[in-house]
């Protein structure tokens, strides 16, 4: 490994990146836009759900209930419905999401439009919280009580689960896209032949490119983490530097995959197509949208083969649980990314060397 040559290649690539103003602006701004859109659109609790409350003459808890339920902006309450039948008709016509019926015995019955799980669970959580408060005020111990959680908030927002995964996805995706075209043109236009004629090793070419891309990666990773933490109040209970370093390692893993693809693809169009299986695997099976534990057993080994699965799990542990290196989940993610990137780099170097 000759550092002079690595530096020459890195400097050359960086000049090229910098000269293309439009692309440069795009790769700096896109991750920020993506994490902003995710934060705004996905994982926040729904608000303004139309719900009927039907009271009973026999009990007096409905005023309390109305007051408690009305206090949150999740529900918009309607008291103009007098019978369960009217309310169910309104639900079936799409005018209401639910009807909360206070029965004569003082119990509560909920009639739902259960076509949207997120909406239903929001309504159920609101009702549960209101009931618990009413009971506590009356000095009655509720039959089910959620104690202070060991990790996380008492009412965890879905976005808190999602955000570490989305950070993982964004860091992975942009590094992959950034590198996947690296050599597609250079392999055919003679420029790479020229670089090799100077005695350059394939690994020097790869590490030179990675160095240039890393300057962009630092910007992307910092923006994404800062927007998540400061823009959307995602908890960051652990060491921010660890989150940053792990995001960088994941970015390098993705770059090595991207560079490998670019040593194989015969055209830029093909390179983009070859990216797709990686993007979909990462999005769907690495525990970003849905827990890995929910995957069928045969899919789990594939899931744990992806560096993103380790990273998303570790991000959650660092950010929400506040864990550090003493936990295997966290240390494992660092080690796995380093090993993965190293092996992928060697595979890519071998592939770049053989020209057939």
């Amino acid at each position, binding site marked *: 490994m*000759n550092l*002079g*040559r690595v*530096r*020459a*290649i890195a*400097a*050359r690539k960086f*000049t*090229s990146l910098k*000269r*293309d103003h439009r692309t440069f602006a795009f790769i700096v701004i896109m991750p920020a836009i993506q994490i902003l859109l995710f934060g705004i659109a996905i994982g926040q609790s729904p608000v303004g759900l139309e719900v009927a409350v039907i009271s009973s003459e026999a009990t007096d808890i409905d005023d309390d209930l109305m007051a408690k339920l009305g206090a949150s902006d999740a529900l918009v309450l309607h008291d103009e419905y007098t019978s369960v039948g009217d309310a169910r008709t309104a639900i079936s016509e799409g005018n209401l999401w639910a009807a909360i019926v206070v029965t004569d015995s003082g119990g509560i019955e909920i009639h739902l439009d259960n076509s949207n799980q997120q909406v239903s669970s929001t309504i159920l959580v609101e009702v549960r919280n209101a009931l618990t408060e009413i009971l506590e005020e009356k000095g009655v111990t509720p039959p089910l009580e959620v104690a202070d959680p060991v990790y996380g908030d008492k009412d965890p927002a879905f976005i808190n689960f999602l955000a570490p995964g989305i950070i993982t996805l964004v860091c992975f995706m942009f590094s992959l896209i950034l590198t996947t075209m690296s050599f597609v043109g250079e392999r055919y*236009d*003679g*420029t790479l*032949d*020229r*670089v*090799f*004629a*100077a*005695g*350059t090793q394939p690994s020097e070419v790869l590490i030179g490119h990675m160095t240039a891309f890393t300057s962009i990666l630092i910007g992307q990773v910092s923006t994404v983490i800062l927007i998540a933490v400061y823009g959307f109040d995602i908890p960051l209970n652990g060491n921010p530097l660890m989150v940053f370093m792990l995001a960088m390692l994941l970015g390098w893993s993705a770059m090595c995959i991207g560079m490998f693809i670019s040593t194989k693809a015969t055209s830029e169009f093909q390179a983009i197509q070859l990216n797709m299986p990686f993007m979909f695997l990462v999005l769907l099976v690495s525990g970003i949208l849905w827990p890995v534990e929910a995957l069928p057993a045969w899919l789990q080994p594939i899931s744990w083969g992806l560096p993103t699965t380790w990273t998303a799990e570790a991000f959650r542990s660092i950010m929400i649980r506040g864990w550090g290196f003493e936990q295997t989940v966290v240390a494992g993610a660092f080690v796995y990314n380093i090993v993965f990137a190293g092996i992928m780099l060697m595979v890519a170097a071998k592939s770049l060397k053989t*020209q*057939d």
Partner: protein
Amino acid sequence: MAIKVGGLIRGYGRGKKRIEVLQDYSMRVERGTIYGLLGPSGCGKTTMLKVILGRLRPEAGSVEVLGAEVGTPECTVPGSAVGYSPQEIALYEDLTIADTLLFHGRLQQMLPQQIAERQEWLIEFLDLPEAGRQIGNLSGGQKRRVSLAVALLHQPKLLLLDEPTVGVDPELRYRIWQHLREIADAGTTVIITTHYIDEASKADCVGMMRDGILLAEGQPQELMMPHGHTSLEETFLHLCRRTNVKEVE
């Protein structure tokens, strides 16, 4: 001997898709000479250069460059001993001329001072526009000359020039040949591929190549004389016909 190639076989692909490019190819190039490799497009010239550069591995045969077998640790090619100008322009369009020379100079471990001196000389000699011009905005002929400048930059012992004079004006082509002659006299070995037959006749030694085989090799005069030809063109035609007849038999 600068280059000794014997019994070289190299093709692409396998099975039915296989294309034979070099078939039992042999050539010898003396140190300090200009070797003109003459042949039509697709005859295997570029493949042969890539084998010498160690970029393509031969399937059979031996390739000795500057006294060592290609691919062994003792061999100085690829490396700073060789200057290569590919057939394609092979330049980064978004760099300026100065960026390009700086990049290749650094790859060759040259000092900034050396790069600057060579840049000044090359721009003057090859009649290039100012160093700050972007490659993408140059004409085809200018790009071709920058490509040649990169190969000459570090003053290598061996120059492999793949069709370097396409689209270059006659006056400049004359100057390039004059320079190649000067450096050859000073000990540099030059291999230049071309399909301009009159250009090849200026070389010390000419190799005539067709369909992956070297039909003949020798000084231009030597090649023409036995057949009583007055130009290399006639000789080439004669050799082609002779091989065609052999193939039919």
